């Protein structure tokens, strides 16, 4: 802690020109010599949006909050500087750090629904900081709050200011958080995945608003996210993080056109495109946690280009082009990258279809409320049909009816010519066995106390497929198929990562030897590289076992790569349907066009 001689407000004028710079930052776990992030250097200029991309466990959020001189409980900023003008945020006494927060360096949280205080009215919450600091008068603050809300496209009447967070929609809450961060006119803004969980159209609006505000107010913004497609839409420059280090840094075009680090390339390879179907590939292995990161290049155990030296030399960031650095010792030797690598022909719309599941005039109710209106479509053998829509479109509701999880519906669901009962209790054992449901969140759908063997064996015993020794053999076989070795057999589900759990969930569904899989947003809780490998796995199962799938998702790009047919849903009705190629290449409905236009893309 340096003793401060000059009054903070006196030096403030001279610093407003200059953005913020992170130098040689290292954050470690308290009490252990284990780094969460290490060797971070970043410069943010005014009016510039820098995207900080990484998968879970990469340390991106840690870097984001350290710009505000803050580390989550359990972590400690061990070394480095955050230079804001002529001041080092990390070296200032904490009173001055707090003074900087909000007013000069602001933060927009990840999940605003939980980041706004549930017991304080939003009007009060927006002006709270300024009121505490005594900036302006009560009227001028209220005026500012109203102007700020208008700027982000929200109503600003008294009634709205008197609301609580729970009375707003997700998109509204996020924009309130944005308005709150912008109100004191900060010079630096840290945005921590602020659009996670928003629908694409809302996300599009929030991103536009954010970009416009940053540029018009000359704010230096750090946009922290796992979503490369979003970064491709809004960032000027991009830093890619892996295992606590920046592995590649450059202009947006450099990163997306000429990615030079093997990890960046692998990440881009796992992302689906809107324009063309791709054979998605995951990255083998899993992201190492702090403390378990390998020596040498931290990516070497997963890197397809790794040579012996990679395991021993710690690579430094080296320039590839002006303003474009990569942390790889082989950066000059690994050739160029092509975005269209991995594209495959779209699913053939003219393929002979052998329908096994037919849904006709489906109306679904929750209590007295009708949520799905008159939906009809069918699913053929070895085919993937995607149900796409925003939240509230009814896509999951329909899939739950098919899966036997929801009973209040009218109409017909025919499975191989005979009608399915409402709810699984009214279905025959064979129907239950042949239609399996995979849930969105593998953290909730697997009992964390059971071993993987018990979990996967269960359906076999239930449906009398196998038991005892024979069942265990089958479990091993299934785990092999979902690319998990027999080593996980005796582990409890709580020991696995999200991607591994979702594989177990898929293995459990496969154990029943189903003909139809209902996949409810099965990849949306997972990292993109894991999503890539799960999609590859499902595609493989479709081909080898002829399994049909109903694939519920909000991600249109994913649809292009996995499905043959698509139903676009809005407000419980089918807006447009047909083969994926037709619907996505020549959408007829305005709604579909809007969805496509708002979907972030890298192609």
């Amino acid at each position, binding site marked *: 802690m340096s003793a401060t001689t000059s009054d903070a407000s006196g030096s403030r004028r001279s610093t407003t020109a200059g953005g913020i710079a992170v130098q040689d930052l290292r954050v470690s776990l308290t009490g252990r010599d284990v780094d969460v992030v290490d060797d971070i250097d970043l410069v943010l200029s005014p009016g510039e949006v820098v995207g900080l991309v990484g998968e879970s466990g990469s340390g991106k959020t840690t870097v984001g*909050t350290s710009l*505000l001189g*803050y580390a*989550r*409980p359990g972590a400690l900023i061990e070394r480095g500087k955050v230079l804001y003008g002529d001041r080092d945020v990390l070296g200032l006494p904490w009173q001055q750090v*707090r*003074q*900087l*927060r*909000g*007013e000069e360096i*602001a*933060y927009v*949280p*990840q*999940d605003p629904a*939980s*980041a*706004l*205080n*549930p*017991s*304080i*009215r939003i009007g009060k919450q927006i002006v*709270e*900081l300024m009121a*505490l*600091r005594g900036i302006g008068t009560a009227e001028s603050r209220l005026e500012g709050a109203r102007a700020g809300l208008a700027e982000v496209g929200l109503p600003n009447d008294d009634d709205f200011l*008197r609301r*609580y967070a*729970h*009375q707003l929609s997700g998109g509204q809450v996020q924009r309130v*958080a944005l308005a*709150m961060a912008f109100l004191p006119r900060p010079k630096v803004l840290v945005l921590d995945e602020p659009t996670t969980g928003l629908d694409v159209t809302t996300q599009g609006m929030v991103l536009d608003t954010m970009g416009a505000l940053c540029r018009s107010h000359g704010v230096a913004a750090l946009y922290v996210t796992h979503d490369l497609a979003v970064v491709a839409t809004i960032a000027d420059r991009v830093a890619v993080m892996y295992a606590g280090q920046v592995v590649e840094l450059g202009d947006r075009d450099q990163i997306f056109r000429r990615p030079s680090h093997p990890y960046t390339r692998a990440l881009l390879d796992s992302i689906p495109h809107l324009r063309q179907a791709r054979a998605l590939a995951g990255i083998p292995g899993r992201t190492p946690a702090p403390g378990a990161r390998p020596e040498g290049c931290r990516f070497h155990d997963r890197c397809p280009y790794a040579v012996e030296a990679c395991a021993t030399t710690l690579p430094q960031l080296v320039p590839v082009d002006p303003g474009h650095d990569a942390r790889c010792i082989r950066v000059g030797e690994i050739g160029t990258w092509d975005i269209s690598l991995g594209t495959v022909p779209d699913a053939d719309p003219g393929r002979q279809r052998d329908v096994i599941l037919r849904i006709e005039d489906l109306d679904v109710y929750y209590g007295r409320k009708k949520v799905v209106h008159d939906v009809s479509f069918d699913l053929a053998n070895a085919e993937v049909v995607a149900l796409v829509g925003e939240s509230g479109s009814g896509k999951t509701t329909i899939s739950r009816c098919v899966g036997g999880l929801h009973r209040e519906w009218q109409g017909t669901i025919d499975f191989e010519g005979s009608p399915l009962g409402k709810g699984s209790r009214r279905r025959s054992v064979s129907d239950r066995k042949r239609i399996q449901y995979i849930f969105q969140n593998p953290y909730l759908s697997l009992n964390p106390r059971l071993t993987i063997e018990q979990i996967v064996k269960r359906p076999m015993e239930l449906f009398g497929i196998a038991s005892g020794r024979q069942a265990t053999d089958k479990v091993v076989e299934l785990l092999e198929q979902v690319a998990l070795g027999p080593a996980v057999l005796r582990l409890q589900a709580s020991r696995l990562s999200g991607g591994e759990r979702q594989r177990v969930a898929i293995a459990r569904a496969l154990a029943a030897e189903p003909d139809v899989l209902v996949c409810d947003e099965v990849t949306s809780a997972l990292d993109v590289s894991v999503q890539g490998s799960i999609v590859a796995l499902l595609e493989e199962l479709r081909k080898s076992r002829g399994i049909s799938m109903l694939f519920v998702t909000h991600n249109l790009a994913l649809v292009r790569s996995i499905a043959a047919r698509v139903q676009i849903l809005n407000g419980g009705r089918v807006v447009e349907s047909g083969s994926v190629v037709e619907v996505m290449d020549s959408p007829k409905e305005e709604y579909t066009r809007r969805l496509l236009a708002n979907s972030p893309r890298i192609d």
Partner: protein
Amino acid sequence: MVDVAALPDALEEVAPPASRHGAAAWGSWLLRRLGLAVLTLWLVSVLVFVATTALGDPVRAILGKDYGSDKARVAELEAQLHLDQSPVTRYLHWLGGLLTGDPGSSIASQRPVSELVGANVVNTLVLVLLAAIVMIPVAFGIAMISANFRRRRPDTVIQTVMLAMAALPEFVIGILLVAVFSTTVLHVLPAVTLSAPGVHPWNDPKTMIMPVATLVLAVAPYVSRIVRATLLEVLDSDYVELARLKGIPESVVMRKHALLNAIVPGIQVIALQLAWLAGGVVLVEKVFNYPGVGNQLVDSVNNHDVPMVQALSMIIAGVYVVVNLVADLLSILLTPRARTAISS
């Protein structure tokens, strides 16, 4: 830090239901809850009645050895307890009396129960209220200090002490206090409350100190442990993190952002503890010979004074129901989500 400045602030946040529709919704909610409260009390009355009179022969219980010898007294008691009538009739008669404010006469003293009970009820309510007024700020203050030092030395020490105190039965605390302040070590406070009939004990404030202190010491540990746990949970929440990242000073984070959201579980335990106090002061009142409901209940049970026991049980049950009703109402008023759910 040891203040509860957020309390009035929190109440100030509470706006009356905006529309007529909201008012109607609140009215119907309140009516429903009151209906439930009445139903609860009625069930309690049945249980109390069954437990005190319908099982066995109350006259035999009252007279004990004298039952065989004193035929006149037996007849007199049977008449007073209306034992010639069926239990249902007797119950209805008693319930009617309760509702009209005439729960019969005491068997021991032959004076009307309402007259005997009145002063003691007030005494106990004052005792409990005083204990609550001292206990709530103390418990919240300790919880805040503890949460502030989470899992560091001061927190550990406080938690250990709290746990030890929570484990001690309240009469042990009472006896210890007596030993320290009035008999063995010091002689500064009176060991027992000696007040003439008809005079309230707080006319001599010194006699109130130790009963109140005992109750506070017995109850505050529970409340502060619960409030601390909730506070820690709230302090880990995203909105507290955001408040810090927004540059809000720590003391304001604690008072406005954290305490406001930790208060509702606090209210629930406080209510449970207060309700428990209303009946559970028995031992404490006995230790200090405090002229309250508990003391009276013990005496009445010893005397097999059935009408007294019945009336006192009903009063204690009534306090339970009312305190919990108030706590639920406060919880809802302080939880915007619940509040807006009712008025919309």
